[in-house]
């Protein structure tokens, strides 16, 4: 967090050398050799072929790249894979259990909470993070805390309805647990 010393410099530094990065992605430990300039998002999409995580802006302005790192939702475009070395990453592909959909996935289908589907994995991962955070109980709180996920198709009312339903399903499940 220091001031950047040189904002301009003559640049033809060679591309950075790959370094080993180990990530536990959807429960599977993966060691990759990545140049440090590879973001977590590009590591997932280009190196692990997990293209469910989407690139909508690459600048933290849309939320399409949202994944869970150690259970918390983040924008995977604004962190380097190397910075997440050793951590657990959950992507949309990791939310299903075998053939069974996550309650959020089911609710999104049921409520037609998407149209083109491009923002959807990010919405669902973000909603999973939201539920885990436990800070939203009203529709307005869901709206505010889901505002980091743009949906250009404008499926917001259905997204809120789907999250509300999934939240209830998750709560019921938790209460029913021994």
């Amino acid at each position, binding site marked *: 967090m220091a001031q950047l010393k*040189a*904002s301009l410099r003559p640049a033809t530094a060679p591309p950075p050398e790959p370094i080993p990065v180990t990530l536990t992605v959807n429960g599977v430990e993966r060691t990759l050799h990545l140049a*440090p300039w590879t973001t977590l998002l590009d590591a997932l999409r280009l190196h692990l072929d997990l293209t469910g995580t989407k690139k909508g802006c690459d600048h933290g302005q849309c939320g399409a790249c949202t994944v869970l790192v150690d259970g918390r939702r983040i924008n995977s475009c604004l962190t380097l894979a190397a*910075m997440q070395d050793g951590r657990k990453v959950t992507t949309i592909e990791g939310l299903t259990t075998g053939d069974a959909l996550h309650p959020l996935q089911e609710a999104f289908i049921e409520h037609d909470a998407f149209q083109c589907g491009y923002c959807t994995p990010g919405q669902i991962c973000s909603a999973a993070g939201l539920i885990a955070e436990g800070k939203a109980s009203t529709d307005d709180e869901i709206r505010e805390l889901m505002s980091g996920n743009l949906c250009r198709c404008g499926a917001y009312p259905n997204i809120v309805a789907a999250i509300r339903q999934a939240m209830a399903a998750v709560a019921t499940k938790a209460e029913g647990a021994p």
Partner: protein
Amino acid sequence: MRSFTYARADSAADAVGRAGASGTAFVAGGTNLLDLMKADVVHPERLVDISRLPLDRIEDTAEGGLRLGALARNADTAYDERVQTRYPMLSKAILAGASAQLRNMATNGGNLLQRTRCYYFYDTATPCNKREPGSGCGAIGGVNRIHAILGASDQCIAVHPSDLCVALAALEAVVQVTGPEGERSIPFAEFHRLPGDRPEIDTVLRPGDLITAIDLPAKGFAEHSTYLKIRDRASYAFALVSVAAGLEMDGGTVRDARLALGGVAHKPWRDPEAEAALIGKPATPDQFRGAARVLLRDAKGHEHNSFKIELAERAIVRALTEAAERKGAPRP
């Protein structure tokens, strides 16, 4: 993004030592730095990852205040119970900024070093004295709806984009820094600079300096404070104008007052004279308006942002009114 090397610091001293080499930047949350690197606005040659240093705690201080670790995440800070009850304006300010995902990533120290959102700063095909000293200011005479009305210069009319910092300014936080020359404390009002003729320099930090913590004084204005943010959409947008307001009330009379504005200047804007104009006076809209006018007395608009002057006045009156009305520490 240009080529760089990456290393992880294993202690604050290690980080400071590594930062000696020119072209080195610390990275913690990465939310602003990586954005700027991708946009080719900044190009460090070496990144030193400080995100795993043990600087993420939030602790009580001996003086009755709170020490916010530089690496504590924005979200963890906003939702910390002590912050929520003792410094609700800070909690509210943090939650008014960015998105839930970004707040989970961004650190408190990094937020202090957030760069401006000026269009010209971000677009490398256009002139910008902050990005490229001497190239000119595109925003002056250009598209400047989001730009400064206070404290600007003929070199730069950019604004500081942070919400958190506006509350920290109002709370008179102190920034704790360690650097090649040891440790020092920087009062918040002195931390950010005005652009003057060196708009490329945002803060008083020196090369190699590492922010370790932000200290909040005991006085948190918990009973009478608010953070009001006005923006072009309901969420996930930078402030056109924001107000951090804290009052100490004695019945209907203001005993102490803090007022800071965001979205209007190169730094969170405070003016002791405006606060003095409130103290000892009744908490009425007219008094609040008077203080707002003191604070805005030197405000100067440009082609597209003159509305901010009146908006700021109205926002100050609203924020102070809300703060005065507020009882107890509400849920942010």
